[in-house]
């Protein structure tokens, strides 16, 4: 049975909704009633059925609409996708990884036929049927990174590894939590993480870098991060801050359930075989407060996490203005009962 792809928007009238099935598979990010940074890296191995970890690259009901939104962002601002000249090979690595995994995980929607370097790619949901020569950029309508990531949910940063550091030398970034590829391009690991509070002092980034530099082929890893977004907008970029920044002032006790979203990122790490670069996909999942509280455990726990969040983190995540309103709203769903350990709904 195939996925039932929805037609919806992430801008203007914001028609985005999760189906009840999609709510149940939401990657709720809190395993306990509180939150502090941790490296929280785990092996990225295929997980349980009907979770977002069932396949290495999750495709869900929002796929077609998310790809349409990405095309709109790129049409307005082509600098959302960039690749420095030495990163083309890493782009081909990325294309191979995404095509082979998608075709393997969702054969009813994607297929790939390889005859040496003559490849035939079919993407049924997006109506794409292309033949090209692997390694020859002139046979594709875009460079390989842009071509395949216009067909893949989530942002992708491609990190070159050299001189004992990682360098953000390519990527496509249209569904981001307020960071800019155009600003970060060419930066190293410590430079692009410089704005993050507290974590540097905790030594988090040094440990994370050491781990990532040693990441091996065939042994991908993942972690998660979270923030909140007002209205289901994928493109909360610095470039478009003028379009969404003021949304934060529009939260009222009456509209919390529909307007306020928990935004979870699943960040993955893959060693790319030809280029020895690291692929860093950042997949964004949104859930409305109305949808979240359909799980009593998630409602109780998120109320406690948000209420007790250290002020520096609330500031960094941009939640300060509307946090009290949301905490008050969520408190109606928290009877003080204990919550069970682990991420899942009860």
């Amino acid at each position, binding site marked *: 049975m195939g996925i039932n792809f929805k037609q919806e928007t992430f801008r203007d009238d914001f028609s985005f909704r999760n189906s009840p099935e999609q709510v149940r598979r939401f990657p709720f990010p809190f395993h306990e009633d509180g939150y502090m940074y941790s490296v929280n*890296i*785990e*092996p*990225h*191995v295929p997980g349980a059925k009907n979770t977002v970890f069932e396949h290495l690259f999750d495709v869900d009901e929002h796929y077609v609409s998310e790809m349409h939104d990405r095309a709109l962002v790129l049409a307005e601002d082509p600098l959302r996708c960039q690749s420095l*000249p*030495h*990163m083309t*090979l890493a782009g081909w*690595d990325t294309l*191979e990884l995404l095509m082979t995994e998608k075709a393997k995980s969702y054969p009813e929607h994607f297929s790939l036929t390889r005859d040496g370097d003559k490849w035939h790619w079919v993407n049924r949901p997006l109506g794409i049927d292309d033949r090209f020569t692997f*390694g020859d950029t002139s046979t594709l309508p875009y460079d390989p990174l842009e071509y395949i990531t216009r067909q893949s949910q989530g942002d992708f940063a491609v990190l*070159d*590894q*050299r*001189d004992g550091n990682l360098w953000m030398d390519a990527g496509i970034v249209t569904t981001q939590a307020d960071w800019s590829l155009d600003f970060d391009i060419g930066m190293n690991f410590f430079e692009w993480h410089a704005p993050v509070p507290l974590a540097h002092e905790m030594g988090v980034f040094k440990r994370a870098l*050491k*781990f990532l530099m*040693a990441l*091996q*082929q*065939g*042994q*991908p*890893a993942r972690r998660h991060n979270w923030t909140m977004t007002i209205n289901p907008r994928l493109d909360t970029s610095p470039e478009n801050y003028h379009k969404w920044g003021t949304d934060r002032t529009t939260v009222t006790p009456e509209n919390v359930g529909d307007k306020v979203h928990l935004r979870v990122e699943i960040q993955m790490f893959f060693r790319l*075989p*030809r*280029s*020895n670069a690291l692929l860093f996909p950042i997949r964004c999942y949104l859930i409305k407060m109305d949808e979240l509280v359909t799980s009593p455990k998630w409602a109780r726990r998120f109320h406690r996490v948000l209420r007790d969040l250290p002020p520096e983190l609330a500031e960094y995540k941009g939640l300060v203005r509307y946090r009290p309103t949301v905490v008050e709203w969520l408190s109606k769903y928290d009877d003080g009962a204990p919550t069970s350990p682990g991420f899942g709904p009860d």
Partner: protein
Amino acid sequence: MRAGSNRIDVTVTDVVVVNELVKRFHFERTHGGILPTFSGGAHVVVEMRDEGKTRLNPYSLMSSPLDTRDYTISVRRDDAGRGGSLFMHREVKPGQRMVISNPVNLFSLDLRAKKHLMIAGGIGITPFMAQTAQLAGRGGNFELHYACRNDALATYADVLTARYDRRIHLYRDDHGEKLDLEKLLSTQPLGTYLYVCGPAGMIKWVRATAAEAGWPDETVHFEHFAAPQPGKPFDVRLAVSEVDIRVGEHESLLEAIEAAGLNPPYLCRGGVCGQCETNVISYDGKFLHNDHWLSEEDHRSGCKIMPCVSRFEGKSLTLER
């Protein structure tokens, strides 16, 4: 933390005598299918079951990254070594099943380079076999300077010359041919990156000459072929696991720790990658540091050791493992 499986079951499909010191080994997947794609400069760790002892030795992949139906490595026999190369030469035959790791690259090409200038000594030629194949397939600009003892030990010089002609420069000791490194380095175009793989003395010479000529550190890449050296046996207390172990003459400290049932992380097993770095809790004696990872200060402090290549002589050593 380790994700997924790092081990690949392979069958030895061919063993080729290259010259009096070097044999080449071909591996294919035992259960069929192509092997993982890799990048030039990568190595695999080969598991050897040698009379109840497990040896894990890293070898550079020398086959073309563009063709992964099989992997090939070349092993130089080291009669004074700890026995890994002798095992490969004496015991490994076509048809034999072995286990290797996924490829790991600690000697990667810098793809920003306008030109790749490669300097090889002896068996240090192997990673360049894969790197030149990778670059040639994409029209990359490279030049290889290869020093060896004589024609008989100029491993793969004939193959490379046939493939790449004037891009290969050979220097034979017994013909009195000598690489004029100062001149070579002073005549390179902007955007050239330098790679060196060979004996420790050669790496030191190339790095020092490049530094003297003003080459930035980031443009000089090198790979040490530092196999662990044998030495006097010594005793170690592993404090975390509460185990006492003895490191044999032909065994590395890392191998002895593994033989005790522990699994410390590793990638290179040659003192370069830093994965197996171990804290010293207490000691009474002298460290024999052979790694390229720890700083001189770390070496002097007596607080850290790289168990893959370094040893110890003295009364007692307690490690945080």
